[in-house]
């Protein structure tokens, strides 16, 4: 059975260019980039070329790019680093990679509106001159909700002029032109595997006047911002994916958006009680996140999996269980308990993927509802 992959928001397959680049790099002897010989210089050159590619993707200067082990480490570097300098403020729908370090630092969490947008009045109330960092994700991983960072930045400038603005752009990275969408951010986190690169590498991009103190100490790599021998082949793969994305982003995003729109329209027409969690105009092109009444999310995921369709409900805890979503709870108390399914498309999604889920999901929901009614009636 051909697998239908609709979980690109969790991770997306590597671009062929990235697979080739990683393979070539791993097959070519390259030294430790800190070394003082030709083999090491090769590694160092690849690393710096990769830095330039990632910088180009985000429209920043390469010196601002610091490689990390992924998006989570980049978020922690920003949040926990700035927590040494002052108070931290973030949105209630942030990824746990931001939320948990903010909570650990005793930071302030700002509520969101029903449509997933940050409550700007609450943000203003949470800000004061002691705030060192405000962290607001560019697009939400569960709902796909895109945030207007310019609006956020204006509030921050007014109420906490010395605070820096960080954005977790991990989910947005595959879709938005970060040079404009994230221009207002002083710091930005990205992860390679969400945009066609390998797992295990990410970046924190920080303006020179917004560099956090280091978390990991050691050999002083990455200009002392993050010690540890760099993942050179990972960086090369990240760069290849970034280049490929830079070349085709707008065409790819529009192609996927039309697939997503068709999928969502037809699912809503075929399933009673199916509603998007956030309006489409505020959403990333690849995400379709639906509340489906009168079914258990876990049951949908299991039956879709049996049919060879990979989806997810919301975020997952370490045990792999679908817990109640803090994102939806923040958007509305009734939403927190809702059953949702996230169908997320990516750069390699095809019309046949959409056709397949349209064939299967309405029947899955009907079957679950009728059997649930039988249980309730017995």
């Amino acid at each position, binding site marked *: 059975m051909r697998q239908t992959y609709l979980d690109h928001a969790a991770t997306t397959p590597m671009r062929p260019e990235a697979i080739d680049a990683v393979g070539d790099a791993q097959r070519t002897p390259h030294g430790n980039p800190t070394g003082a010989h030709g083999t090491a210089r090769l590694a160092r050159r690849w690393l710096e070329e990769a830095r330039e590619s990632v910088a180009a993707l985000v429209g920043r200067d390469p010196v601002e790019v610091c490689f990390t082990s992924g998006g989570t480490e980049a978020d922690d570097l920003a949040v926990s680093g700035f927590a040494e300098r002052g108070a931290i403020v973030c949105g209630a729908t942030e990824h746990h990679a931001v939320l948990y370090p903010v909570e650990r630092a005793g930071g302030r969490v700002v509520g969101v509106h029903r449509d997933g947008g940050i409550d700007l009045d609450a943000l203003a109330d949470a800000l004061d001159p002691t705030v060192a960092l405000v962290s607001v994700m560019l697009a939400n991983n569960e709902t796909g909700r895109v945030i207007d960072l310019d609006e956020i930045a204006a509030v921050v400038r007014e109420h906490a002029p010395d605070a820096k603005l960080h954005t977790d752009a991990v989910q947005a990275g595959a879709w938005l032109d970060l040079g404009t969408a994230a221009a207002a951010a002083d710091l930005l986190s990205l992860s390679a595997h969400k945009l066609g690169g390998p797992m295990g590498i990410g970046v924190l991009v920080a303006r020179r006047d917004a560099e956090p103190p280091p978390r990991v100490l050691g050999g002083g790599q990455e200009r002392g911002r993050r010690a540890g021998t760099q993942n050179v082949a990972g960086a090369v793969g990240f760069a290849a994916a970034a280049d490929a994305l830079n070349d085709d982003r707008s065409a790819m995003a529009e192609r996927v958006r039309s697939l997503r729109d068709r999928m969502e329209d037809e699912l809503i027409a075929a399933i009673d009680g199916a509603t998007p969690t956030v309006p489409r105009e505020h959403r990333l092109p690849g995400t379709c996140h639906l509340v489906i009444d009168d079914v258990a999310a876990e*049951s949908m995921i299991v*039956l879709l999996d*049996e049919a060879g369709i990979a989806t997810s409900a919301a975020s997952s805890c370490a*045990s792999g269980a*679908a817990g109640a979503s803090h994102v939806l709870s923040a958007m509305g108390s009734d939403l927190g308990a809702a059953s949702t399914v996230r169908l997320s498309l990516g750069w390699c999604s095809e019309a046949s993927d959409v056709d397949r889920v349209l064939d299967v999901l309405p029947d899955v929901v009907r079957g679950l509802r009728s059997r649930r009614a039988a*249980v309730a009636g017995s």
Partner: protein
Amino acid sequence: MRILVAMSGGVDSSVAAALLRDEGHEVVGVTMRLWGGPSDTGCCSAADVDDARRVAQQLDLPHFVFDYADEFARHVVDPYVADHRAGRTPNPCIECNRHLKFDRLLDHAYELGYDAVATGHHVRVAERDGRPLLRRAVDLDKDQSYVLHVLDPEVLGRCRFPIGDLTKADVRALAAELGLRTAAKPESQDVCFISRAHGRRAFLGDRIPLRPGRLVDTEGRDVGEVDAIELVTVGQRRGLRLAGAAERRFAIDVDVEAGTVVVGGTDDLLVTETPVPDLVVHTAARDELTAQTSAHGRPAPVELVDGGVRWPAPHTRVAPGQAVVLYDGDLVVGGGTAGR
């Protein structure tokens, strides 16, 4: 048959899944996430989930984690705390079987189109008059029929207990043969949501006030004190601070309203009747009717009376909240919860 196997991450359910797979059933493994707090295997028992998932991988079975933490809190943890507060001695494993494993999971399995739920419990199912009844396991030391007595025949018809015919040694040997990482895993502790590091006192103390109580003798005279009446179990001897008692003293009644624990000697500990207000009898005994009053207790001859059971030979008091399970030979024919 399509069978959903509840895989806890222990050796028994690992082998249960393997046996059903080898019988040719379509098997899917599910680990229930029950407790969101700390446990002896980490937050949300993450290490147990990892073990279950790895075993499912080795057996090439799909594996899912179902989150029942809310239901577990509502049906198992909250009543456990409330029972202690009321001076009873609850058995949370029984409530978990009643409400989670064989209610919520069974419904969930049906919803997903599965024909049966299997677990790694050491019990068997036997038929009498065309109806399934629970039967003790081959391995009597590991028999779990006591904690599963709440399963009525209708539910039993949809359950499978593949390892009830095996000894624990057989189970471990099979797991080792299959190379399962759980083969040598130690037995799980009694109450999964109470960690060894903190214990029952800390768990309850975080949730309800623990109050000192007076110890009185059967004549009502003060004879000592206890620092947390909510932790006293009828039948308990240790932990009672008695002033100069000559003979062994036991708690024979706990009255949280009055703040007193009545203590008495060995004779006072014996009773001829035990109230079991919710007693259910599935079928009449054909041989001698016996009852077991603790997970590893010995069954004793018993007669049914209105509202409970009568012991022909005096029997140790049953702590209110503990199960009284009726057997006919090795068949479970009924049961209920001891009252005060």
